[in-house]
């Protein structure tokens, strides 16, 4: 249970205090009305006695009353009527929410929960106080009956004494009428007190004194009081009013309640709402009776009565003359000075001490005497009474609720009760307890259940109020019994409620929260929702006081309380509060059914209370991504409610609400600074501007750096990125160009079980014009340009600087992701920030019957949240989770600039190895104002690409000369091709077409060529120095021919070149490769065809071997010579040769030779370095006739180049190389072998050096038996060792003779030559360039 401000005993004293009625004459009321007060109201603030007063009990003990309070009510005031009472209670609860003090938080920490809970419930206190104030006393008790009646007559009355007697008469008439009506009185002989009211400013003092004298004479001095009030006139001027405002106004609290309730009473009396089921249903009958009573009772004093009941209205009109509704402006006690206040204090004190307490003393004594005298009688009659009592109980059992008590008015129990009540009211708890207990003892439970319950209740209360004075244990069971009796047997929930209110306070003080919970719960199930809700909430708070706290029980009962608050209506704020308080507790994972229920209720109710933000927050929680338990139907229901609520509350919103679904997958957001463009020339559009692969990004930036490396101007600028994803480095802002399309691609996920329908999807952006320039120039801009634009508004705006494309429809299926691609264009330079997407959200309704009633989708937004890569470079970053900045959504827009489109037509897809194909490249400047001054191209395979102008349609250029000079220099060429230079800029809106030659590589398979076009314009400025267009082509390369050669030196300054050409196609086909021409490009060698004319076509599986001989070419001027050999069959074309040196062949050849030497081609920084030309290069031209898809034959041309390694004579040959020798003999000899065969062998020697040598020739005899191949070596005849002198460049022949005795296969290798070094007297052996000399000796038959 929540804490309250008052202590329990104070609370009980306040709940049960002596009641005093005030009966006023009309003139007295008139005087009081000057202060805007009735007399009862006038003295109400003074009802609590500040000082202690005392009286003596029957046993003459002094009882000291501390803090005694009297409850003073007008004679005619009635407890509020049923519906009104309900309304008052409701209001008390709903108003109390507004003045909640802030610092009432209580922290509860448990293992699982850390909670901050408000531990006061002022609304409950307000309701309880209100309930106790407006509830009335029952027939079985006297606590709420009036003890005394105060008669008030003013001195302005013509005959005050007569008026007094009339009032007395009125009171006694009321008391004696039958049946008894409200107000009820404590006993027949109540205490009467007489006040002569004197208006100091108007009345005559002498009259007052004389009348008061009479009064004292008639009613006794102790029972009369002359009260002087209105010491000053009511303020007419404003200063007086101000002064009055400064006066303390103790009435405000009291009068506000009563006057407003009076007004409401008069309003609600007529239209009583019978349909409401109410807690105070038992009250209805009584009050209905009472309403009759007021009309009947008003008969003798009708004029008074009506005027009094209309009192608040007349007061307001009379004094304000203006609106009656505004109660707070009414000033109370305007005519009263502080001394008047003191007089009222004195009056109250005298009334209590001199009048009321002596009366109480007397009556207690009387009761005591009655009790003691009767006790004797009772003892005598006790037995038969018990006997008869049994009979009466059975009768009362049948109709327990109709009669609350069937005890006669003067029975013993009633006397006990009355005595106890009186003692209780005047704080003599011990006496009260004795009497209550006596009453209880004498009664059986069933005899008079209501009475019995009341006694039980009071027993508990008095027991508690005695505090530690007695050692009696608190009879908790009594209270439970009392509540049980009240609710079940007597059906008097009002008393049960009162009982529970007091009881739980007591239990709370005794810290037995468990029992308090039981009592709260018992009463919470009754039909009053408001009381049920309040009690449930209190029970929930009690759970928190358990040790350990029952947090989850608290949460559950708060939810039920919230539910009851909702059912009670009018106090929805309390329901929201209940739900909100415990939302956190259910926020643990996966209690989502419960969590959703709370959120759904919160959302719905917040919406109906127009708390738009709360409603949105609650509903958004319903669709949180981790919520997977709800089924589809439930989600559809949620969604329908969501849409309905949103459509109601977001109409007034200026910015779009954030929507919970679908979920944007922030890692997938891509920003692409290029639009789609359709081919204008009918070709293929450059395709690589919206690709994103990690590998290729590096390739592109490498290519771009290759180009920009040469530009001094562009040095330091970063490479141009068009595409930004979560894998790119996004520290810098993307740079977009005004009026160009920016595309955003993202994936959204539907976490719900129902398909979502997004419509009118577009990018949400923010745009500001400033800042794209350097700060120095910013100051010059007009303030208008500083303005920020955004489309984050609910209303459509015109004249926006950014134009968005709208995606009309997008369906996302349950648990699926969907790609959304959106584009936008800015019309001005500035800073564009992509905030998110906005769309109209709905779900795809499949049920047709729903479709008609289905609410319209709601416009809302989802924001993007991008973050860079997680940083991991230093310790701080490793320990925390720090992400790099990501600026990919903050786009810098630069002024309009040229945009180059590239189109290819037609780009070949499949090629043979070595094939050369051409295609057209269209450069299109789409800008209407600026021209492009330079376009450069770099590719990933620069050696396979060359360009020519559009006119060069033919690959082959023919010439008549079979031999010619390469008439231009072969320079190492830059790998960058300049397509447009500033001499011939690409003008605005113009197109230029260039022919591109592609040479397929010699490796079969897939070949990828990346093309990077980099273009510049004069209007480009930092940060956009240049722009790029990317294209990547994939070619399928199939095998064509193999082209191999191995040069063989003939040793004598000549080369033989056997050339083998294979058809290497892997699949059988009917294609024929026709070799056309072989060209030799060399500085030193000339080529000659040794092969006979053969068919030049090579079909599948065939090969062609050709033999060429190269002779040393006398070449003085170091120029490059070409020699073409026609290999074709066509006799008519024998003198038509293809000029290799002409482009594009020349370029391809240049690429070939520059690629040969890898060490040189690796670094390209030296721009024009002469290419190291290989000694000999062969270029083979071939063609394949192939049928295309249309069945037409087309000729495909190919080019294979080879540069065989040959042994070129060194300028400084080694010594053992300087001498070359050769054996010349007939290799096959037939002989009859009738005699020894003498074979003449000629040894040829050649000195290559410009030097004289002495040679040693040895002809060994040793046979090479170890060699398995040879049968034997020959035998030489003649001189076996001789020395030969060989001068410079001398040819020398020696005749040797070899002897053979039998046929066989002989080697002539057993010959060794050595150079004799005279200085060192050593020999250096000479290696033969042909090692094996064999001779085949056969028998001639």
């Amino acid at each position: 249970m929540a804490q309250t401000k008052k202590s329990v005993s104070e609370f009980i004293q306040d709940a049960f205090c002596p009641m005093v009625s005030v009966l006023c004459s009309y003139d007295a009321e008139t005087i009081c009305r000057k202060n805007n007060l009735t007399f009862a109201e006038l003295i109400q603030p003074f009802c609590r006695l500040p000082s202690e007063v005392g009286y003596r009990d029957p046993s003459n003990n002094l009882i000291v009353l501390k803090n005694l309070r009297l409850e003073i009510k007008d004679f005619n005031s009635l407890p509020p009527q049923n519906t009104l009472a309900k309304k008052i209670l409701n209001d008390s609860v709903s108003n109390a929410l507004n003045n909640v003090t802030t610092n009432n938080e209580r922290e509860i920490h448990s293992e699982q929960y850390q909670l901050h809970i408000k531990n006061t419930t002022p609304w409950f206190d307000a309701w309880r106080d209100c309930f106790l104030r407006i509830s009335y006393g029952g027939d079985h008790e006297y606590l709420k009956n009036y003890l005394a009646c105060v008669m008030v007559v003013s001195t302005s009355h013509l005959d005050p004494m007569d008026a007094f007697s009339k009032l007395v008469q009125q009171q006694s008439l009321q008391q004696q009428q039958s049946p008894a009506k409200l107000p009820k009185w404590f006993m027949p002989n109540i205490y009467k007190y007489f006040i002569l009211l004197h208006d100091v400013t108007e009345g005559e003092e002498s009259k007052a004194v004389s009348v008061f004298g009479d009064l004292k004479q008639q009613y006794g001095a102790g029972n009369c009081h002359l009260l002087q009030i209105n010491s000053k006139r009511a303020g007419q001027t404003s200063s007086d009013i101000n002064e009055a405002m400064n006066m303390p106004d103790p009435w405000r609290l009291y009068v506000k309640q009563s006057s407003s309730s009076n007004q409401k009473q008069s309003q609600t009396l007529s239209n009583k709402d019978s349909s409401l089921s109410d807690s105070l249903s038992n009250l209805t009958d009584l009050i209905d009776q009472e309403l009759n009573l007021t009309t009947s009772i008003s008969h003798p004093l009708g004029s008074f009565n009506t005027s009094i009941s209309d009192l608040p209205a007349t007061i307001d009109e009379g004094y304000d003359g203006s609106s009656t509704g505004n109660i707070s402006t009414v000033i109370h006690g305007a005519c009263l000075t502080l001394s008047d206040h003191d007089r009222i204090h004195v009056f109250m004190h005298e009334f209590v001490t001199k009048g009321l307490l002596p009366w109480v003393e007397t009556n207690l004594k009387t009761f005591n005497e009655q009790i003691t005298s009767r006790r004797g009688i009772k003892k005598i009659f006790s037995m038969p009474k018990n006997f008869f009592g049994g009979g009466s109980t059975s009768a009362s059992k049948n109709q327990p609720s109709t009669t609350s008590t069937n005890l006669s008015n003067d029975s013993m129990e009633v006397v006990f009760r009355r005595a106890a009540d009186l003692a209780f009211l005047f704080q003599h708890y011990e006496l009260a307890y004795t009497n209550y207990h006596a009453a209880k003892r004498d009664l059986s439970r069933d005899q008079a259940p209501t009475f019995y319950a009341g006694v039980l209740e009071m027993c508990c209360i008095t027991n508690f109020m005695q505090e530690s004075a007695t050692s009696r244990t608190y009879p908790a069971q009594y209270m439970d019994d009392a509540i049980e009796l009240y609710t079940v047997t007597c059906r008097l929930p009002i008393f049960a409620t009162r009982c529970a209110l007091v009881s739980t306070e007591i239990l709370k003080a005794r810290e037995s929260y468990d029992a308090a919970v039981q009592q709260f719960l018992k009463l919470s199930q009754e039909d009053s929702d408001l009381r049920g809700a309040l009690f449930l909430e209190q029970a929930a708070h009690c759970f928190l006081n358990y040790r350990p706290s029952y947090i989850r029980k608290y949460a559950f009962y708060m939810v039920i309380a919230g539910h009851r608050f909702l059912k009670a209506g009018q106090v929805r704020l309390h329901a929201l509060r209940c739900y909100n308080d415990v939302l956190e507790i259910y926020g643990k994972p996966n209690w989502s059914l419960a969590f959703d229920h709370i959120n759904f209720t919160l959302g719905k109710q917040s919406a109906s209370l127009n708390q738009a933000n709360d409603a949105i927050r609650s509903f958004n929680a319903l669709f949180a991504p981790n919520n997977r338990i709800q089924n589809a139907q439930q989600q559809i229901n949620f969604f329908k409610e969501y849409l309905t609520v949103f459509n109601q509350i977001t109409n007034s919103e200026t910015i779009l609400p954030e929507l919970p679904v679908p979920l944007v997958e922030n890692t997938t957001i891509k920003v692409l600074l290029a639009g789609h463009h359709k081919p204008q020339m009918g070709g293929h559009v450059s395709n690589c501007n919206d690709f994103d692969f990690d590998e290729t990004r590096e390739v592109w930036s490498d290519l771009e750096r290759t180009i920009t490396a040469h530009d001094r101007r562009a040095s330091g600028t970063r490479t141009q990125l068009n595409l930004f994803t979560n894998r790119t480095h996004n520290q810098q802002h993307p740079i977009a160009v005004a009026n160009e399309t920016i595309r955003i691609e993202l994936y959204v996920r539907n976490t719900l079980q129902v398909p979502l329908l997004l419509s009118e999807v577009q990018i949400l952006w923010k745009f500001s014009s400033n800042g794209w320039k350097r700060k120095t120039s910013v100051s010059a801009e007009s303030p208008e340009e500083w303005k920020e634009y955004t489309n984050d508004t609910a209303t459509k705006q015109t004249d926006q600087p950014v134009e968005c494309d709208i995606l009309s429809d997008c369906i996302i299926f349950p648990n699926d992701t969907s790609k959304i691609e959106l584009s936008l264009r800015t019309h001005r330079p500035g800073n564009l920030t992509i905030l998110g997407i906005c769309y109209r959200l709905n779900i795809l309704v499949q049920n047709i019957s729903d479709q008609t009633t289905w609410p319209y989708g709601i416009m809302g937004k989802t924001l993007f949240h991008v973050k860079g890569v997680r940083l991991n470079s230093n310790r701080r970053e490793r320990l925390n989770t720090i992400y790099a900045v990501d600026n990919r959504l903050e786009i810098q827009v630069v002024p309009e600039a040229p945009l180059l489109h590239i189109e290819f037509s037609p780009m070949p897809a499949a090629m043979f190895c070595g094939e050369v194909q051409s295609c057209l490249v269209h450069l299109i400047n789409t800008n209407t104002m600026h021209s492009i001054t330079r376009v450069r191209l770099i590719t990933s395979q620069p050696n396979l690409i060359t360009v020519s102008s559009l006119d060069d349609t033919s690959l082959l250029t023919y010439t008549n000369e079979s031999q010619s000079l390469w008439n231009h220099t072969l320079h190492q060429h830059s790998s960058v091709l300049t397509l447009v230079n500033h001499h011939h800029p690409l003008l605005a809106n113009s197109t230029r077409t260039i022919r591109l030659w592609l040479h397929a590589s010699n490796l079969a398979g897939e070949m990828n060529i990346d093309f990077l076009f980099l273009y510049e314009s004069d209007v480009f400025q930092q940060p956009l120095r240049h722009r790029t267009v990317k294209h990547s082509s994939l070619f399928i390369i199939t095998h064509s021919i193999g082209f191999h050669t191995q040069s063989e030196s003939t040793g004598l300054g000549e080369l033989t070149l056997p050339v083998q050409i294979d058809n290497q196609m892997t699949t059988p086909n009917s294609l024929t490769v026709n070799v056309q021409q072989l060209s030799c490009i060399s500085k030193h060698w000339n080529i000659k065809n040794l092969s006979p004319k053969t068919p030049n076509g090579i079909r599948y599986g065939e090969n062609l071997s050709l033999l060429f001989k190269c002779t040393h070419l006398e070449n003085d001027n170091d120029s490059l010579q070409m020699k073409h050999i026609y290999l074709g069959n066509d006799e008519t074309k024998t003198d038509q040769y293809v000029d290799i040196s002409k482009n594009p062949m020349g370029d391809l050849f240049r690429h070939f030779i520059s690629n040969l030497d890898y060490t040189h081609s690796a670094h390209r920084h030296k721009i024009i370095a002469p290419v190291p030309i290989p000694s000999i290069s062969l270029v083979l031209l071939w063609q394949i006739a192939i049928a295309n898809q249309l069945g037409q034959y087309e000729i495909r041309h190919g080019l294979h180049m080879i540069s065989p390694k040959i042994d070129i004579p060194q300028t400084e040959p080694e010594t053992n190389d300087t001498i070359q020798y050769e054996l010349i003999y007939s290799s096959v000899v037939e002989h009859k072998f009738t005699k020894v065969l003498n074979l003449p062998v000629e040894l040829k020697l050649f000195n290559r050096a410009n030097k004289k040598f002495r040679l040693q020739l040895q002809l060994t005899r040793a046979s090479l038996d170890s060699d398995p191949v040879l049968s034997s070596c020959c035998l030489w005849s003649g001189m076996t060792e001789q020395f030969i002198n060989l001068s410079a460049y001398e040819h020398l022949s020696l005749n040797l003779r070899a002897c053979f005795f039998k046929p066989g296969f002989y080697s002539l290798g057993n010959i060794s030559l050595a150079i004799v070094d005279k200085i060192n007297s050593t020999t250096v052996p000479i290696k033969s360039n042909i090692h094996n000399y064999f001779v085949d000796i056969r028998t001639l038959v």
Partner: protein
Amino acid sequence: MSSPSSSYYFVIVGHSDQVVYEIELGGGSSGQTTTDNRHLNQFIAHAALDLVDEAMWRNTTTYLKQVDKFNEWIVSAYVTAGGLRFLFLYEHLPRSGEDGLKNFLTEVYETYVKLLLNPFYVPDTPIRSAAFDKKIQTIARKWNL
């Protein structure tokens, strides 16, 4: 008891009060009607945790019998050695009675222990395993739930 509206709710609650596993058992025919009250099961089970926490220290057994009651719903509990709480919500005891319920909970515990042996299952995280679902249902059928 003659025709019990046999709808049961079983939930495993983790150490920080999160739902580790929940399943609605029985009442196959009246499945539609209970969907509106599904959240009530959670509310009641959640509220019973306070009493389970108290009862587990007063008992030496793992099976705590009836720990809480809200209106017609009764909550029985089983606390594992590791401090995991199994709650079983019912209106009427199953046909196999108190023993059946106890056996059911014990066997579920055994199944759970087997699940724990799976190195890919992190304790205290939600169990999303079709095999586990099936096993629980089999055990439930075995004990006439």
